């Protein structure tokens, strides 16, 4: 069971590394989608089946496509991100993240309570997820619903094409 986990984990890390390092923006987006898919597989392997498929549906199906769409809309020709590879700010950024990783890794390695091995994932059936969602997690569910609608309307408002003042054809295409 662990071998499968490690393979998928390796996949995730390779995808993430590719997302960060590749210069071409489109390749970043696609490797990001690959990382999300690998993460979805990891959730499946860990037994959280529902979360795995939701992850693929939401991230690979929607968020990655949105990112790709925005890339298409904003910089179709300037794909190569130029600029020196090792400028001062870049080294600083890498240093900071390495420091963060060091502390977390040290904490995980040193802490005593994380020794237990993962038990075989028992099937979590949909019934219990449904009941749980609508009983003890009802408030967060409704709150997320409201949040999603607000985000939807907000995104539409931001991305809407303001009518170019004075030109009549945009009025006409608005009605």
């Amino acid at each position, binding site marked *: 069971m662990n071998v499968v986990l490690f393979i998928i984990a390796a996949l995730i890390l390779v995808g993430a590394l590719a997302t960060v390092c590749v210069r071409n923006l489109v390749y970043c987006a696609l490797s990001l989608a690959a990382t999300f898919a690998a993460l979805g597989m990891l959730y499946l392997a860990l037994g959280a089946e529902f*979360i795995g498929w939701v992850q693929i549906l939401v991230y690979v199906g929607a*968020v990655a496509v*949105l990112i790709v769409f*925005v890339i298409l809309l904003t910089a179709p020709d300037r794909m190569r991100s130029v600029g020196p590879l090792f400028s001062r700010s870049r080294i600083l950024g890498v240093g900071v993240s390495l420091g963060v990783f060091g502390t977390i890794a040290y904490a995980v390695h040193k802490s005593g309570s*994380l020794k237990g091995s993962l038990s075989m994932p028992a099937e979590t059936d949909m019934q219990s997820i449904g009941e*749980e969602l609508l009983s003890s997690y009802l408030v967060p569910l409704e709150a997320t619903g409201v949040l999603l609608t607000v*985000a939807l309307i907000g*995104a539409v408002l*931001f991305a809407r094409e303001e009518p170019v003042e004075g030109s009549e054809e945009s009025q006409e295409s608005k009605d």
Partner: protein
Amino acid sequence: MSTLQVLLTVSALLFCLGLTAALTRRSVIMILIGIELMLNAANLNFIVFWRAHGDSDPSGGFMFALFGIAVAAAEAAVGLALILLVYRHYRSTRSEDLNKLKG
């Protein structure tokens, strides 16, 4: 090094990769991609701890990850809409150019 610890280090590494992406890359879209990676790393942690807890009723970490995904999707949508707006106004997506607030 139990599998639990390995998975936690993996999610930590994922988090740091997201952090480097957000900090070092120039394009605004890459910053958003970095944030997405960090959010996913957090979700991974929730699921791993929920699985480490052992029982199969979906509470605690499972639910948290579920709502995490929903919120992250909403945030990505709004973020991208913002990027579009910024691009339409500034005509460029390089983060250096967006320095009007510097004063």
